[in-house]
């Protein structure tokens, strides 16, 4: 089913299912970028200049509401696949959206990226005026790094927990040195359904790969499991997972999910996706350190203290990337996109058991010919999975059921 309307340039989907079984889908519309720069300021102005839309289904994905634009001013969102806006639901039916925003430093009058949040308390029909969660410091790195931004709080993520709390995290450059290329990890939480958030707090001061979007999920105890990429000595960049208590204290430091070491003095642009079931954590990420770069899958049976990599998930692919992973009941769904032979990029998926063993073969997603890419998945209340993907300039949706 096509979700985004014709005429938009939709990309960067995200999806959430709340405890009532309602499904929220989000995407970025890049149409504002087709308009010339507004010339509002003379310094560097960066893309992406986009809008975010949300649509809700209350009937298990059979129908979706007319999309609602989330941001109040057009082009306010720095939204792209590399730094996707996020949506989550909380038990009382609210929907929460976090995104990186195009902002202007109040003193320096230079562009910067900040992390914004908004919520809907009317089932997605409207969203409140966004609030900025990331602090603005007097840092000005515009002449040194990231081409024109005074600072950046981006590539973030968000999760909600069973206790109703909402947690937003992002990668922050406020401590970045001119000779460094790693960021800090900051976060902010709400315990009143998004009405108020805590002052942003640093969780990691450095060594976070600044262009590899964070991911986070919560377990049944409302503890947070976070995926990120670390920058180590000599530019090795492992995909890692760390855990935090429900109050936001780090309980397990970053653990590598394994696989061949990847040494890269560059921007991998690769998130580490995570899913959780009791003490089991499932993780996946693209690794350029493998003989054939591709998505690797890894499992922790001890709450994230250690991981056992299971290797490349799609060995016959020339390249595989953009994994997404979800647990529902006794099944784990891993989806990704890949190029096989001379075929265009397509979405593939496979189910796994809770012990990380594959069930059945790799499946190619049944979609129209051409490029299908950037899947995201969520667990439905009926035990199946909802999968979104991007095809051409539209976002599509389908349901997958594990055997």
């Amino acid at each position: 089913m096509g979700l985004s309307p014709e005429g938009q340039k939709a990309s960067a989907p995200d999806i959430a299912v709340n405890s009532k079984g309602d499904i929220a889908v989000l995407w970025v519309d890049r149409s504002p970028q087709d308009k010339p720069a507004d010339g509002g300021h003379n310094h560097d102005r960066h893309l992406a200049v986009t809008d975010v839309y949300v649509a809700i289904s209350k009937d298990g994905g059979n129908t979706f509401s007319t999309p609602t634009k989330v941001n109040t001013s057009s082009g306010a969102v720095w939204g792209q696949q590399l730094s996707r806006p996020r949506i989550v639901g909380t038990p009382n039916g609210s929907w929460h959206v976090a995104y990186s925003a195009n902002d202007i430093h109040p003193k320096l009058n230079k562009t910067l990226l900040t992390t914004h949040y908004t919520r809907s308390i009317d089932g997605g029909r409207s969203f409140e005026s966004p609030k900025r969660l990331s602090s603005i410091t007097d840092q000005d790195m515009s002449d040194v790094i990231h081409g024109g931004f005074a600072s950046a709080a981006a590539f973030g993520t968000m999760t909600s927990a069973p206790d109703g709390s909402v947690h937003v995290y992002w990668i922050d450059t406020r401590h970045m040195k001119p000779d460094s290329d790693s960021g800090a990890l900051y976060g902010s939480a709400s315990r009143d359904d998004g009405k108020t958030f805590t002052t942003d707090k640093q969780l990691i001061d450095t060594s976070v790969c600044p262009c590899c979007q964070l991911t986070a999920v919560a377990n049944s105890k409302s503890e947070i499991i976070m995926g990120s990429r670390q920058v180590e000595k000599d530019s090795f960049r492992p995909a890692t997972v760390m855990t935090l208590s429900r109050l936001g204290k780090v309980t397990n430091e970053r653990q590598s999910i394994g696989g061949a070491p990847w040494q890269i003095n560059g921007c991998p642009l690769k998130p580490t996706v995570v899913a959780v079931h009791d003490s089991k954590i499932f993780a996946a990420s693209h690794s350029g350190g493998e003989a054939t770069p591709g998505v690797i899958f890894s499992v922790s049976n001890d709450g994230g203290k250690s991981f056992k990599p299971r290797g490349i998930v799609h060995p016959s692919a020339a390249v595989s990337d953009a994994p997404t992973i979800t647990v529902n009941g006794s099944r784990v769904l891993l989806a990704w996109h890949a190029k096989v032979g001379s075929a265009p990029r397509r979405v593939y998926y496979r189910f796994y058991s809770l012990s990380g063993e594959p069930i059945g073969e790799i499946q190619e997603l049944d979609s129209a010919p051409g490029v299908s890419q950037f899947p995201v998945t969520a667990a439905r209340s009926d035990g199946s999975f909802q999968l979104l993907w991007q095809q051409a300039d539209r976002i599509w949706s389908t349901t997958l059921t594990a055997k």
Partner: protein
Amino acid sequence: MKALRGFLIIGLLICGIHPLSAAVPAKPINAADFKSALASSRGKIIVLNFWATWCVPCLREVPDLLAVTNEVKGSGVVLIGVAVDDPSPGATEVERFRKRYFPEFFTYARQGSEMDELASVIDPTWNEVVPTTYLIDRNGKVVRRIQGKKSTQEFRQIIKDIL
């Protein structure tokens, strides 16, 4: 003379051949035109650098690449950038950046929706890591793919091996 130089630059751009001396605006390009542009550059050794304005290692690498390729430009080595930033009308955003920080850098700027489209012209297995630098020989064959920033010395040696 100025008008003649401008005419020559425009003419070369129309032919898809970039001027050996840069300082021309960032050129928005789609996959089909990119393929044509590379084909028309046969006979040269191309150092093709995929970069982005938001990529810190890329920004540190560009000056090194400019320096190294300038050393050997007499040997028919040319540096061509490909900015993978999200497209803007007329590549104004990449151009604004290029002009300010790397005025001597000739770069294309992607016009298509996805980063992968341009790279797929020469490397369908590109994994969207930046910077990625391709060394293309005089016959148009990709002979080396380099991922991540390398030192000036490393690039110098890599190019020397091809010459």
